[in-house]
């Protein structure tokens, strides 16, 4: 087993993580260096300064407080490329990834196998150098890829229309709240928000909606509460009812009653999904969801320390003009040939300005393409098989873990590939013990739910072999035997 280093500074040779930035001010302003990288000579600069009546460049920064102006960064001397590479590789070797560890960590980011073809298509420069496809005459490939992506997501979620994606699951959920707010033109100000929605997503919602004067209810319920406990909170002032499916604790609930209750008060109903789970579960359209959001990371996108990810967003046709984000459409050109364009652009902020639902219309072009390649490769039956594999492995793990004394798993509640384990010791301690044996145990729910310090959220995917699951159970048995 490799030595674990607690403090990364211990291992850097210079004591600084990135020595590449060690350029001092004199060097920065030296004529010879400037001309290498900028189009302006000192004579150009002097002429410009003279034209605006300023003596030297520094005078332009007078409005900044002295203590923040040209600070001495005390960086070490510059090093060669070879030394820098050596140092960076040394730093990166401290990282421990699911390639080296046995991982049962999920809670929003999942360790799935990414077929090589995903990367090989992503790395075509036609795709990765392409910018926003505002000009259809030069962007047919990008636009078609977005159109295919939208078609796949609409089909997966069972919804009429998908946009070209958002930044990640968290921002997609926030856009759902935003859309509901604008759908009622600000006249309904209550959001019924399940506390079994990923806590980080709920934080992002608060960031996006700051200043909107919205009332959020439901988050203070007991974490054990199910969707039907939200019903009594819905009223005529409710713009949106928002749940996660499977929820943050991995649980699967029938959302029919909650959806009916939301619609009875004419509120919108939004469901956040894990796309892999839809290989097995009823799509949210069958619960009559008005909006479906999702984190697209499981669809062929590496965990990458939290991003870049992919925000899935789909809705019913009747709300398409309220939806944020880009939308690619299929059409015909003047010769009758099939072609693709961005469509319904008047929804977007570059045309509607302050009237737009959202001022963010950026999509994750390349990451959406990754999920498109991934889903195309798997196909319908491949996704179903993958979902079953996740389901069965997770249930095998749950059964085995529940044989260890003191470890309890709710025997009744259905789940997909993630479940809560009640531990005989604080989850933090269990995790530390597992990590000492090269196992990333799971997500310590006590970190965000104070009453859940003994609860560990365990995720199992197709990447976890039977041997890995058995090994984790063995390690638990050794430590927590009777």
């Amino acid at each position, binding site marked *: 087993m490799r030595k674990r280093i607690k403090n990364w500074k211990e291992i850097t040779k210079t004591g600084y993580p990135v020595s590449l930035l060690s350029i001092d001010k004199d060097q920065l302003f030296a004529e010879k260096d400037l001309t290498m990288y900028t189009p302006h000579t000192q004579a150009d600069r002097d002429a410009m300064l003279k034209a605006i009546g300023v003596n030297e460049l520094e005078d332009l920064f007078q409005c900044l407080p002295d203590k923040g102006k040209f600070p001495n960064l005390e960086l070490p001397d510059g090093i060669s490329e070879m030394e820098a590479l050596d140092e960076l590789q040394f730093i990166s070797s401290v990282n421990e990834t699911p390639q080296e560890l046995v991982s049962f960590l999920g809670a929003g980011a999942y360790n799935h196998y990414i077929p090589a073809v995903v990367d090989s298509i992503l790395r075509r420069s036609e795709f990765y150098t392409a910018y926003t496809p505002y000009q259809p005459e030069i962007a047919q490939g990008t636009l078609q890829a977005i159109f295919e992506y939208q078609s796949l997501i609409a089909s997966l979620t069972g919804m009429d229309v998908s946009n070209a994606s958002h930044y990640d699951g968290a921002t997609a959920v926030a856009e759902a709240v935003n859309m509901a707010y604008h759908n009622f033109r600000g006249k309904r100000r209550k959001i019924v928000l399940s506390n079994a929605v990923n806590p980080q997503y709920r934080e992002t919602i608060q960031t996006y909606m700051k200043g909107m004067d919205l009332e959020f209810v439901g988050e203070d319920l007991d974490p054990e509460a199910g969707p039907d406990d939200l019903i009594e909170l819905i009223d005529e002032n409710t713009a949106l009812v928002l749940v996660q499916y499977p929820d943050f604790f991995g649980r699967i609930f029938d959302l029919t009653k909650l959806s009916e209750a939301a619609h009875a008060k004419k509120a919108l109903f939004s469901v956040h999904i894990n796309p892999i789970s839809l290989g097995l579960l009823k799509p949210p359209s069958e619960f009559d969801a008005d909006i479906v959001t999702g984190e697209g990371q499981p669809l062929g996108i590496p965990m990458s320390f939290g991003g870049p990810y992919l925000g899935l967003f789909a809705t019913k046709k009747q709300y398409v003009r309220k939806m944020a984000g880009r939308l690619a459409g299929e059409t015909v050109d003047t010769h009758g040939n099939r072609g693709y364009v961005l469509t319904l652009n*008047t929804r977007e902020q570059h045309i509607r300005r302050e009237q737009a639902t959202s001022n963010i219309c950026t999509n994750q072009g390349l990451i959406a393409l990754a999920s498109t390649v991934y889903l195309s490769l798997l196909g319908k039956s491949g996704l179903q098989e993958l979902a079953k594999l996740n389901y069965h492995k997770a249930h095998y793990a749950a059964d085995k873990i529940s044989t260890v004394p003191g470890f309890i798993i709710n025997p009744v509640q259905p789940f997909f590939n993630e479940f809560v384990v009640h531990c005989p010791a604080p989850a933090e301690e269990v995790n530390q013990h597992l990590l000492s044996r090269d196992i990333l145990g799971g997500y310590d729910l006590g970190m965000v739910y104070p009453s859940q310090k003994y609860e560990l959220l365990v995720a199992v995917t197709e990447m976890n072999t039977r041997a890995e699951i058995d090994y984790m159970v063995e390690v638990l048995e050794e430590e927590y035997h009777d």
Partner: protein
Amino acid sequence: MKIPAELKYTKNDEWVRVEGDNVVVGITDYAQDQLSDIVFVEIVALEGDSLDQGETCAVIESVKAAADVYLPVSGEIIGINESLMDSPELVNEDPFGDAWLVKIKMSDPSQLEGLMDAETYQKLERDH
């Protein structure tokens, strides 16, 4: 550009036809011409709503822009032109007739005095 003499106008290019205590509202020939081909009309006011002067009652979307229509006078919405949902092009074809948007029962008829007559509207300076 048609500007019927019997109507009243706002600086936002809405027209108002007074019918007793009620008014009918639409957008002017100039407005539809500026917007160009209209592809979608959403009347956001609901029958029975009581709205104030200046509140948005409809959104008109063309191939190049989306514009809000503001209520010229306060009152209760007593009718909306549902045919525009399926035939938004009516706004281009007949802005003063078939493409009326909403009917309002006025709560304060004195607000009509703040609107322009046809002659004043015609002389309105356009900054574009």
